[in-house]
C-alpha cells in the first residue's frame, strides 16, 4: 500500500460511510454514535473494510465505540496502528 496522507485516508473512510449508511452530509467531527448512525454491529462490519484497506489488524481492545464515533476518531485509530506497524523493531 502506498503511504496515504491524512486527507485521502479520511476520504476513503467517508466513502465507506456514505456507501453503507444513509447520510446527507457528514462533518469529520460529527458524532456518529450519538446520532445512532454507528453502533457496535456496524463497527464489526466496518472493521473488515478498515483492516483490508489500510493493512492493519484490529483487536478487541480497539472495539471501543470512542474509536468509531467520528471520521476523525476512525482516522486516528488507523493512523496509530500504521505508525505502530511501521516502527522499526
Amino acid at each position: 500500500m502506498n503511504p496515504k496522507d491524512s486527507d485521502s485516508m479520511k476520504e476513503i473512510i467517508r466513502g465507506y460511510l456514505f456507501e453503507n449508511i444513509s447520510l446527507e452530509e457528514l462533518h469529520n467531527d460529527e458524532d456518529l454514535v450519538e446520532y445512532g448512525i454507528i453502533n457496535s454491529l456496524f463497527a464489526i462490519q466496518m472493521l473488515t473494510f478498515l483492516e483490508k484497506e489500510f493493512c492493519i489488524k484490529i483487536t478487541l481492545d480497539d472495539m471501543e465505540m470512542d474509536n468509531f464515533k467520528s471520521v476523525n476518531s476512525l482516522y486516528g485509530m488507523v493512523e496509530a496502528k500504521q505508525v505502530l506497524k511501521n516502527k522499526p523493531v
Partner: protein
Amino acid sequence: MKKPAFMFPGLGSQYPGMGRAFYENYKIVKETFEEAEDTLGIDLAEVCFTPKAEKELAGAETGRLAMLTISIAIYRLFMEQINISPQFCLGHSLGSYSALCCAGVIDFSDMLHIIRHRGIIVNQVNARLNGIMAWVVNLDNQITEKIVRENSQQGMELYVSAYDSPNQVSISGRRNLVMSLVQKVEKAGGLLYPLKHSGPFHCPLMQDTVEPFRHVLGKYHFCPPACPVISNNDGRPYEVENRLVTTLAHHLVKPVQWQESTRYLVKQGVTIAVEMGPNKVLKHLIQSSTNSIKTYSMEKQKDLDILQQALLKE
C-alpha cells in the same frame, strides 16, 4: 418480475430511534405499535423512541418484543406501499418468528405472547449459567471450529452457535471460557466480539428451555404459510403442519444455520432479498456469502423510494 426473499433480523439489531420516521409518517406502523401495547401492556413506542429508555431497549427481554414489533410494522408498511409478495421468508434466530408471522402462520398478538414466554423461559435458564455468546469474525469457519474443539472441556463445553457467513460464526459457552479465546482468535487473525445482553444461546447448555417452550407452543394454532419460510435449523422450509412446534423448540439448542439458508436461497434462484428491519446485519451477511443475491434494506424513509424503483424494475 422476480419475487424477493424477505429477511428478518434477530435480537441485537435494535437501536434507539429505529423506524422513527416510519412511525411518525405512517398510520399502519403506529397501529402496529398500538396493537403490541394493547397485547402486552408495554408502550414499545416509548421504549424505541425515547433516549432514556435505551437500556431497556438494549436488554433482551424488551428488545425481543421491540424487534418483533418493528419488523412486523415494517413488513406491513412495505405491503401497503409496494405490495410485492415474497417468494420466501426467513429470519435470523428470533427473526424466524417475524418471518413466520408475516407468512401468516400465526397472528401478531399471539406471536407477541409466544415471544414473551420464550424470553422468560430463556432468561430463567440463562440466569443459572453465566454464559455468553460471541461473534468470531474475519476468520475461516473451519479454523474457528478447530479453536472451539481444542478448548472445549468436559463439563465446560464450547459450541459454535451460529453459522453466519464463510468467515463469521457465533460461539456460545460459559463466560470465562469464551473470553479466554480472545487472544487465540486474534493470534489466528480474527476477532472475537462478545455480544452484550446475550447468553449461551443456540447450544445444548440451553437444554432446559426445550420442554417448557414446547409446552407453550402447544397452546397455539398454526396455519399453513402463504409462502415457504426457511428454518434456521437446517436451512430448509419449515414443515408447518407436522413439525413446527418441535422444530422451534429444538432451535433453542441448535446452531443458527444462516449460511445454509443463504445457500438454499441461491439454489432456488432467488436474486433479490429485502431486510425487513433495522441495522442491515443480514444484508451484510448475505453480501459476504454470495454475489448472486442483490440485497436491500427497508429501514429508513428513503428506502421506500429505492425499493419501489429497484423492485418494479426487476
